[in-house]
């Protein structure tokens, strides 16, 4: 099979028509990838004799041997190499190079701190690199600029700081654990992948910012594991990052902003979007996004949901059903829709596993999308010098993630003794954040963030 050097293994397989990556343990059901952004485990394969390689973020190399692994992932045939760990000591570690993490790094550097920025993907930018639409907000949040362009601008700035020795950028790298550090310090274990080989690092820092993002939610229905059922992030990644069509005809589930925007991008990529179904009685996303789809002839059906996906070994179609005012399926309202792809845009869950490992206090806050680290207005968690920003602190927009990143970056640097107008800057950024959350669409994050703040203050 052939692919491009910029492909991941998963995108190259997809482009070659391979959608089944693994099989389920008990019933041997075919499984494809789901999240496409390195968060779930449905794309694990055996690469060059190494089992459990996350193919959706592993780079494609020439002449590699990729196998569907047996269910229990038999022992590696790759050679076991014992390498000495390398040690890095610096001021601040930022985990996750999306909009929040990039801005946290920039602001921490501006305060005078030295930074290590880590991301498990092959490129910086997080989800910005697939946002081909222009951003909302004010000019402070680069409104009117496409997400992809914001990623390019921020990367340029960070690479410039890297050349001045202010930041070390480690991509294709994963923070895998935390250890008791020296007094007043945090110690982390980090794996940096060189192709598929892993190198171990010990990272000692005075403060850390977790901006680890979020993952698409799954929805429960028969057939939800068939290859062809993808999270919205996976669909965006395939078409906007790797130029691979996820399918020819898509049924979109969810009319929030993500579902509406991804549907429009699918149309732009020349893919048919049969319809958007939404369980709520109203469209959850901005009307302007819905209008863009409607005037292209795509129907949006509110009070409709997916009943089941049918198909042998892959998605062949969907049965959708109308819901009554109590969200119960109305018998006899089923409609069969043939399609090869089902895209789920039904919300996100914050990625917080590292935060719980570090030992910060977590609570379930529904409005924030799940379990989140309690934090104050400076984005400080309950552990000293541990900060959080972006979707991993509560699901919201990229524009607010950028500002939260700025606050976390300034706060982290300030907490370890750097101060270039830090208090004034934090106040300014908090004001910008408040303004963005003032409208009706800001209600959910506003309520969520208030709950988080109250829980943070009331915990003593």
């Amino acid at each position, binding site marked *: 099979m052939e692919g491009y050097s910029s492909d991941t293994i998963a995108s190259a397989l997809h482009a070659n028509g391979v959608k089944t990556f693994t099989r389920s343990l008990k019933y041997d059901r075919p499984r494809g990838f789901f999240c496409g952004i390195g968060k779930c485990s449905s794309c694990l394969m055996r690469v060059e004799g190494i089992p459990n390689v996350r193919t959706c973020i592993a780079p494609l190399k020439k002449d590699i041997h990729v196998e569907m692994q047996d269910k229990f992932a038999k022992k590696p045939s790759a050679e076991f190499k014992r390498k000495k760990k390398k040690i890095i000591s610096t001021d601040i570690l930022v985990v996750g190079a999306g909009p929040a993490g990039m801005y946290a790094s920039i602001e921490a550097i501006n305060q005078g701190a030295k930074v290590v920025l880590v991301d498990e993907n092959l490129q910086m930018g997080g989800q910005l690199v697939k946002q081909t*639409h*222009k*951003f*909302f*907000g*004010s*000019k402070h949040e680069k*409104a*009117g*600029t*496409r997400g992809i*362009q914001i990623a390019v601008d921020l990367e340029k700035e960070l690479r410039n700081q890297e050349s001045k020795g202010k930041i070390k950028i480690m991509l294709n790298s994963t923070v895998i654990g935390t250890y008791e550090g020296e007094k007043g310090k945090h110690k982390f274990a980090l794996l940096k992948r060189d192709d598929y080989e892993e190198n171990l690092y010990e990272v000692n820092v005075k403060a850390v910012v977790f901006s680890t993002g979020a993952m698409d939610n799954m929805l429960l229905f028969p057939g939800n594991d068939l290859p062809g059922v993808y999270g919205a992030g996976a669909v965006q990644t395939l078409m906007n990052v790797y130029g691979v069509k996820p399918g020819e005809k898509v049924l979109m589930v969810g*009319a929030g902003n993500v579902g509406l925007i991804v549907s429009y991008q699918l*149309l*732009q990529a*020349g893919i048919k979007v049969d319809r958007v179904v939404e369980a709520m*009685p*109203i*469209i959850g996303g*901005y*009307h*302007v*996004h*819905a*209008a*863009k*789809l*409607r*005037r*292209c*002839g*795509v129907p*949006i059906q*509110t009070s409709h949901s997916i009943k089941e996906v049918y198909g042998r070994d892959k998605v062949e179609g969907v049965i959708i059903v109308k819901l009554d005012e109590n969200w119960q399926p109305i018998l006899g309202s089923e409609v069969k829709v043939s399609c090869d792809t089902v895209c789920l845009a039904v919300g996100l869950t914050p990625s917080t596993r590292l935060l719980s490992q570090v030992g910060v206090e977590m609570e379930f806050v529904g409005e924030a999308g799940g379990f989140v680290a309690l934090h104050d207005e400076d984005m400080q968690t309950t552990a000293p010098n541990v900060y959080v920003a972006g979707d991993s602190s509560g699901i919201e927009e990229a*524009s607010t993630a950028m500002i939260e990143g700025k606050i976390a970056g300034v706060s982290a640097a300030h907490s370890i003794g750097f101060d270039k107008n830090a208090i004034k800057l934090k106040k300014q950024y908090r004001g910008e954040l408040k*303004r*963005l*959350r*003032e*409208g*009706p*669409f*800001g209600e959910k994050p506003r309520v969520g963030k208030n709950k988080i703040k109250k829980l943070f203050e009331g915990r003593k």
Partner: protein
Amino acid sequence: MKKYEQDGVLTLDDLVLPSDKQLKKGVALIECIQEIPCNPCVDACPFGAISMKDINAPPIVDYDKCTACCQCVGICPGLAIFVIKVVDDKVLITLPYEFYPFPNVGDSVQALNRKGDAIGVAVVRKIRKRDKTMIITIESGKNLAMDIRNIREKK
């Protein structure tokens, strides 16, 4: 619950419409009526014709100040701004367009309404480009001025 919240399609009752006189002069009609945190159109207008109480308020166009210069069309992240100018029994509609293949000046295209239904034909009169968004001016019958909101290549 409003209709557009259920089906994504605005009706003329949802909008503040310009007068016939203002339409003859040419004006920007902003089909953005929800309170969303967004304001680049305000900064984009060189004539100060677009205003907002705060960043979450829907934009208000002063149709007398608006010169139909189309600066706002390409900046709006929601692609929600249309410039409409009535000339005799024809209408010139300037709209944002982001699909391949790009049409050419002089092409005859299908004119689509807010639901994507083909409701007539239009001729492409002018094409500009701003940050990958095509800003296309089409000409059609005056009676379709308030209905045409998209175009499609003729098959």
